[in-house]
């Protein structure tokens, strides 16, 4: 008798459990693989930007596809791409086949991104890059649209635009050198690390700088892994350069800035130094990184759009770090989910059509994709900004009264201050 009761009790429990679960509607997710080198700043910023987007989108009610609502679920995929391209390719394959992600967002190193792009295209997965700048990635869209149409880039601008921006930044500094130091034809030392992305920059610098009223006194190509550039800096000092035009995408940017500041090399430093975009730069350079000027995407207090300051402050509050361009995952996920809603389906071909219609005010500017699925460059769309470390604080210094042909008013983003020539340079040239 007791046994019979026990069996009945167990059966009742099963029935109750079944009823309980059938009453709960299980949420459905859109899974987005956030791919990046998670042990490094770049991957960490990919992930932080993505998490912020996930929270904001889900708090706003999720993504509506027809009459169904989906929540966004970001899945962290460590590509280890800074150390190994193979690891990156394997990680993306795993994200697609094991984690079953619907979309891929992130990536940093161009070489690894090229490999990951092919895998994503094999599976027709929409892949939005927030980190790699090489033009080959978007050239592939132009040359084989049917295969590569699933690829888009939100940050940074492609390397051609970066060259353009950095040369405009150089012109801006040269103007101040002429004005404050009275040097009409500034001498420029070109220091570009030996990396794939540096080659077009070196060629463009040598070809264009002489046409911009400046004189190139030499080109130095240190290794991207160089830990000591004192010999290069000594030679630059000897060359009589007034300005050093730089490109450092990796570690060597830190010892460069440190030794430049510590040895008080009498030349303004301007160009691209990716490490100078991070909050830890001043500490990493032992405080000698002041006055380093680099192309950047975002800066404290600088409002490229209405969304910039809110996003920036939220990111800093949450992470204790300044967002780099890798945090563009925030905008990328918003763009992606809005395209999904407009398409009303998870079919990648339909979403690509909607992605191509994107016109979105992001944190770093207005994002409209061009035919190669790169962001459109220019005032009113996306331009980079110039940031300089002044008294241990990162300041936006460009665009500052920037006037292009066809513009009626000069462009200065709110929160921008004037570039400062390092005091030892002023002293050296009697400014």
């Amino acid at each position, binding site marked *: 008798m007791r046994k019979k009761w026990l069996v009945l009790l167990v059966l009742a429990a099963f029935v109750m459990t079944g009823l309980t679960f059938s009453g709960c509607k299980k949420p459905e997710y859109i899974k987005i693989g956030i791919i990046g080198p998670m042990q490094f700043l770049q991957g960490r910023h990919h992930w932080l930007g993505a998490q912020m987007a996930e929270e904001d989108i889900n708090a706003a009610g999720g993504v509506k596809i027809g009459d169904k609502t989906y929540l966004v679920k970001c899945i962290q995929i460590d590509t280890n791409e800074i150390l190994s391209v193979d690891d990156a390719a394997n990680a993306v394959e795993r994200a697609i086949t094991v984690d079953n992600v619907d979309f891929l967002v992130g990536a940093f190193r161009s070489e690894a991104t090229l490999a990951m792009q092919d895998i994503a295209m094999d599976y027709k997965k929409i892949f939005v890059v927030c980190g790699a700048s090489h033009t080959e990635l978007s050239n592939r869209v132009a040359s084989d649209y049917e295969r590569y149409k699933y690829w888009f880039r939100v940050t940074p601008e492609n390397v051609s635009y970066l060259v353009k921006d950095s040369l405009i930044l150089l012109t801006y500094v040269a103007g101040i050198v002429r004005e404050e130091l009275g040097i009409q034809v500034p001498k420029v030392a070109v220091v570009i690390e030996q990396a794939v992305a540096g080659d077009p920059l070196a060629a463009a610098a040598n070809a264009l700088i002489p046409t911009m009223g400046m004189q190139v006194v*030499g*080109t130095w190509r*240190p290794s*991207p892994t160089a*830990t000591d550039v004192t010999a290069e800096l*000594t*030679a630059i000092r000897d060359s009589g350069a007034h300005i050093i035009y730089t490109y450092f995408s990796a570690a060597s940017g830190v010892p460069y800035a440190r030794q430049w500041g510590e040895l008080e090399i009498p030349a303004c430093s301007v160009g691209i130094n990716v490490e100078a975009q991070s909050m830890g730069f001043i*500490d990493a350079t032992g405080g000698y990184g002041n006055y380093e000027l680099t192309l950047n995407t975002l800066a404290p207090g600088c409002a490229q759009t209405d969304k910039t300051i809110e996003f920036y402050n939220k990111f800093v509050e949450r992470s204790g770090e300044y967002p780099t361009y890798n945090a563009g995952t925030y905008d990328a996920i918003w763009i992606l989910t809005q395209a999904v809603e407009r398409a009303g389906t998870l079919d990648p071909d339909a979403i690509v059509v909607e992605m191509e219609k994107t016109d979105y005010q992001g944190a770093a500017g207005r994002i409209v994709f061009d035919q190669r699925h790169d962001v459109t460059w220019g005032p009113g769309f996306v331009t980079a900004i110039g940031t300089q470390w002044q008294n241990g604080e990162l300041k936006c210094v460009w665009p500052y009264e920037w006037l292009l042909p066809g513009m009626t008013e000069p462009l200065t983003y709110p929160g921008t201050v004037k570039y400062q020539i390092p005091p030892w340079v002023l002293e050296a040239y009697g400014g």
Partner: protein
Amino acid sequence: MLGNLLVSTLMSASVYAMLAVGFSLTFGVARIINLAHTAFYMVASYIIFTATMKMGLPLYVGVVAAVSLVVLLAMVTYKVLVDPMREHETTVLILTIGVALVLQELMFLWFGGYFRSVPTAVEGFTTLLGVRVSYQYVLTICVLIVTLALVWLLLMKTRLGLAIRATAQDREIANVMGMSDSRTATITVGIAAALAAIAGAIVAPLFIIEPRIWLSPLTVVLAISVLGGLGSLKGSILGAVIIALSENLVVFLVPQGAFFKGAFSLLIMIVVLLIRPEGLYGVAFEEER
């Protein structure tokens, strides 16, 4: 230009020699090519970073902690992992590179891939032959001279030094004479690790700290040691000067090929080895035990 070249070479050579001396000592006595040597330098840098930047302790406390902990780590690693395998040279090579990689991954785990920095002991710069030299470089040169003097005194004027030299010359005979070669080797590994840690304290403020900083110096240290003759201290110094001179020649004469300086210095090493396979101060292979 000559002044620039001389001063720049002196600066680079002092940094390289600082790292190479300990490595050479380990090979000279224990006959171990310790590929984890520069990883100990990396660990020391992180200990100093933690003590000074995270815990706010004075630099000298960080240096003392780094030297003590790295010596302990090196001696335990040697005793537990390397000593039992000492006769199998290839195994030891793989084992020490394994130790270095484990240490690198641990640093990635604890500190991430961020670039860190430790404070300089002295700030500012001076001018030497018209070239600006930071005081930290001047300190590096001074510490190198003092370190070399101390190592020389230890080797030449103490009973321990006698044991080390005897073991280096003939391990079996030293054993027969009552000197434990295992104990001597352990102590030598400890001294070498202390030198790596001092290098970490002196050199790290000049550069940056991240978990892979051991790899590039390892190539240079290997090149210097092979060039100077494996196990020879004076060979290490001369090797450091030659490698530094070759690198600086590239930077000053072919600035567009500055990235090639590492490869060029290795090319110089190969040329020297073709002429003198045992290195500048090394023992000819056929004469080795």
